[in-house]
């Protein structure tokens, strides 16, 4: 039984923090979902580095999903001080959407004005929930990739196709 593997929490937090910070910076988030997958790969690498036994793809999926959730939390928290800048980005998005949409929700400009001056707990939690779900899925995938790349130890067989 592989019960000597190190704790997954630290690698997940580190990988998630890196991914969350990089994906929340406006000029760097142009790499889309690749930051989250990259952070999960990093988490798998860190886990494999301290593990005396080979990692399974299941281990990678779990640590990657945890990294994705961590990234969502970090991304949301980092976004708080960047709220003003983010509102400007959202306004730009909504204005662009209004160019394409025949019908926009009534009063959307006022909604932006109302929320642009402050922080909304409800919006924060909703965004966090959605981000956590999406990032967890992407993170699991990245973790599996990381486990396949870095998780094998010498003198142990691998379930890798020749």
């Amino acid at each position, binding site marked *: 039984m592989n019960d000597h593997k190190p704790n997954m929490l630290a690698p997940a937090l580190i990988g998630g923090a890196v991914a969350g910070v990089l994906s929340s910076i406006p000029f760097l988030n142009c790499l*889309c979902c690749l930051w*989250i997958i990259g952070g999960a790969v990093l988490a798998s690498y860190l886990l494999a580095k301290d593990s005396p036994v080979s990692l399974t793809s*299941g281990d990678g999926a779990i640590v990657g999903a945890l990294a994705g959730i961590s990234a969502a939390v970090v991304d949301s928290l980092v976004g708080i001080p960047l709220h003003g800048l983010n509102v400007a980005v959202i306004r730009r998005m909504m204005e662009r959407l209004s160019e394409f949409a025949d019908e926009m*929700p009534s009063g959307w400009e006022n909604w932006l004005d109302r929320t642009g001056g402050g922080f909304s707990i409800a919006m924060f939690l909703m965004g966090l929930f959605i981000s956590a779900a999406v990032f967890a899925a992407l993170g699991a995938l990245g973790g599996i990739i990381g486990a396949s790349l870095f998780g094998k130890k010498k003198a142990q067989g691998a*379930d*890798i*196709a020749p």
Partner: protein
Amino acid sequence: MGAPDMKKGPNTVLMIWLLVVLGGFLWNAALFAAPLLRHEEPFVSAFVYAAFSPVCHQLPERSFSIHGSPLAVCGRCLGIYLGFSAGTILYPFLRRFSRPLLPATSIFVLASLPIGLDTAGNFLGLWASPIGLRLAAGLIWGSVLPFYLITGLYEVRQLLGGKFRLKSPGETK
């Protein structure tokens, strides 16, 4: 020590594959639903755009459009997600449902080269790829991802179910 319950193995892989097929279909359907619903359901459309905003910059100039409205993700992301679904459909023909195996590292590296080079070149300002090239690079990379996800989900299922974990040849309990 009990032998692996191989009779249940293919059924588990099949179930996971079906879930991944369904998930990929719904994910891709949402991408196209955002612009298609802007007339009938503007709130739903706006919600879908917002849901994908954490994972994509959604720049219209880098996105394909339907009826003049951009899809919920850019061309590169669209390629990844469509490629993922294509790879999922191909999975049974290449792997069957007997035993999930991870792709060789060389395959992943080869599949990652186009998107890696394209992304790096654009990010560093060396060139600006046309949207078709971004889509193609995403398609290639996305097509290998299901082979990782399905294997990983199978392993997670084994771990959580306390079932026998796939052992490597020669490894003893």
